[in-house]
């Protein structure tokens, strides 16, 4: 993985020193909150309902064990002993005190991390497929390109005051595990006629006006990546609406301007700036790629793994749900569920972080990933080590076998923390997971993605949940709307609203009716919830969700 060079190190240290001075001036009264707010946001510091919140970038979701241990140390020393992994592969600390934040940032810099551009109207942390470099179906590891984009976008002078925030995601496979179609720019690494390049999508996004990204070009040569992205953001910077916050994202710009016109303007801008991009960027890319070289995978027997599967049903169940095929013979990708039934999705204690770091170091070629689904990945584990990994995870309360199932729910922090939220998300996720654990049904239900957002901004990706839940404030009471049929993969689809929303008390029974109803509706056990919905359409699901009143009373 990428290691800071002298330039990165000096840049991040300088920024911490600047911010330390700014915090000092805020505390002594020299800066007002209006003056300080844009400065703290540039450094990832929010002020929420109960405390400050520091959002730390995990670039393209990749961490090593040393970094994970440092995140645990920060949680213990300056927070309440845990961190929250987010849908943008970041980690958030919910309880820092203002005075401590510069020290936290210094501690991050000690391990090559920062919180720069995790907020504000800038290019945010570039996200990537959490199986990058390990997935069997991958054309190429997308992370060197994500790192190149990170270097290009960090403190880019033209793009510090965009009309609105700007999010880029990169994947290296046809299977989209990075939701690139719901990003301002989505990049898919492709190989065409032996040449590497990108399919470039633009104008995707969720939020108030959800849109699926549109293809700007089907193949962009790799050497044009930076100038082409710069052209896109530059065109957006000029055309993007600054008069209305709700129409300021590039998805609206593309929608209002038209894709062809946007493409023409991007091409024009690209032609103008392309000559300024010399070979230096490609040389930097080569250096970056060398740092992402695959680990030295070992050849070993996997008999022990098969024997353990036969001997231990709990281990077998966990391997059935939490493993993904690896590109290397004898290896597996391990998804560690941070969704124990009844726990807060995405929250890991400092002890759990240390266990994950130890496992990565001992069994995982020192690599960890944070997924946008708020789980932690050990991308390179030899199958013979899986019984030991499982045992250690179980001791740390991290061995829940539910990846991709009902209880593997994405939930934003909602009104338990977030100042923008209109309703709570976390308790709804906790109730659903607990209920389906009681019913012992989630393995029978099979693949099902439930995603919950506590406001229209859709941090919980509810629009692309097979079942999406949106928490709203309806006349001073929490109310939850349901959408169905959303999909965040390469077949990206925005879910459709079912009808009237449900109160906080009624949402759990509603979800239960829906999921049990699906078991009645499906052709057989091989037809997933999403497939059944696509075959049958909304009506039969709606009938399950909104039964005639007498049936509800009888139930």
């Amino acid at each position, binding site marked *: 993985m990428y290691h800071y060079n002298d330039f990165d190190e000096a840049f991040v240290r300088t920024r911490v020193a600047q911010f330390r001075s700014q915090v000092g001036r805020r505390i002594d009264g020299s800066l007002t*909150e209006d003056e300080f707010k844009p400065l703290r946001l540039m450094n990832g510091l929010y002020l929420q309902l109960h405390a400050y919140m520091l959002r730390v970038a995990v670039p393209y979701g990749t961490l090593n064990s040393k970094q994970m241990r440092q995140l645990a140390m920060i949680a213990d020393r300056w927070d309440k002993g845990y961190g929250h992994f987010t849908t943008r592969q970041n980690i958030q600390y919910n309880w820092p*005190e203002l005075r401590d934040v510069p020290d936290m940032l210094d501690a991050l810099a000690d391990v090559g991390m920062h919180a720069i551009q995790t907020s504000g109207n800038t290019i945010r942390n570039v996200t990537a497929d959490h199986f990058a470099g390990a997935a069997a179906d991958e054309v190429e590891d997308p992370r060197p390109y994500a790192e190149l984009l990170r270097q290009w976008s960090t403190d880019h002078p033209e793009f510090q005051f965009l009309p609105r925030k700007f999010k880029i995601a990169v994947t290296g496979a046809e299977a989209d595990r990075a939701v690139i179609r719901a990003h301002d720019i989505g990049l898919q690494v492709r190989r065409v006629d032996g040449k590497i390049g990108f399919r470039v999508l633009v104008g995707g996004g969720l939020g108030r006006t959800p849109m699926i990204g549109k293809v700007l070009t089907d193949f962009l040569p790799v050497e044009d990546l930076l100038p082409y992205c710069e052209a896109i953001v530059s065109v957006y910077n000029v055309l993007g609406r600054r008069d209305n916050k709700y129409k300021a994202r590039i998805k609206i710009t593309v929608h209002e301007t038209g894709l062809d016109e946007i493409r023409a303007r991007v091409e024009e801008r690209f032609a103008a700036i392309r000559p300024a991009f010399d070979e230096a960027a490609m040389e930097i890319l080569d250096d970056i790629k060398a740092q992402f070289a695959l680990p030295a995978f070992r050849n070993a027997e996997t008999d022990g793994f098969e024997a353990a599967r036969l001997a231990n049903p709990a281990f077998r169940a966990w391997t059935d749900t939490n493993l993904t095929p690896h590109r290397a013979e004898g290896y597996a990708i391990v998804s560690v569920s941070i969704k124990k039934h009844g726990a807060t999705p995405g929250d890991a204690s400092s002890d759990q972080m240390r266990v994950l770091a130890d496992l990565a170091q001992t069994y995982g070629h020192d690599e960890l990933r944070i997924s946008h689904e708020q789980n932690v990945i050990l991308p390179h584990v030899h199958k013979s080590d899986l019984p030991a990994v499982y045992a250690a995870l179980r001791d740390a309360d991290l061995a829940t076998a539910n990846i991709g199932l009902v209880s593997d729910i994405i939930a934003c922090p909602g009104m338990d923390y977030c100042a923008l939220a209109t309703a709570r998300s976390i*308790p709804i996720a906790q109730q659903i997971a607990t209920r389906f654990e009681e019913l012992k049904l989630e393995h029978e239900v099979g693949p099902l993605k439930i995603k919950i957002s506590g406001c229209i901004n859709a941090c919980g990706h509810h629009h692309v949940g097979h079942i999406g839940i949106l928490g709203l404030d309806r006349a001073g009471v929490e109310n939850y709307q349901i959408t169905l049929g959303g999909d965040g993969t390469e077949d990206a689809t925005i879910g459709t609203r079912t009808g009237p929303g449900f109160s906080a008390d009624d949402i759990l029974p509603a979800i239960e009716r829906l999921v049990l109803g699906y078991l009645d509706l499906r052709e057989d056990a091989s037809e997933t919830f999403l497939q059944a919905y696509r075959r049958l359409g909304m009506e039969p699901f709606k009938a399950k969700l909104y039964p005639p009143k007498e049936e509800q009373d009888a139930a």
Partner: protein
Amino acid sequence: MPKAFTPKVVTANALLEGDAVWLTEDDRWTRDMAEAELLTDEAHAELRLLEASARASEIAGAYLADAQATDDGPAPTHFREAFRTRGPSNYPHGKQVDL
């Protein structure tokens, strides 16, 4: 006819800790909403908000929040403000620890 003024309290986040605080009649910032000054007159409420906002080195983001009179003092009317008096629902963190 203009909408009738509903009672308010001045609230903000403490500058250093970031938690919710409310303005009292004797110009203190309290962490117990029941001690807050209940503002029943619109002009007075606007004035109190201006005074509070000027105290930049103590708080951030002052605003007027709806409140109601109870025997124990001002209480929230909206769930958001009620959460601010307690803390999150997923952990025993925040103000509820001391309740």
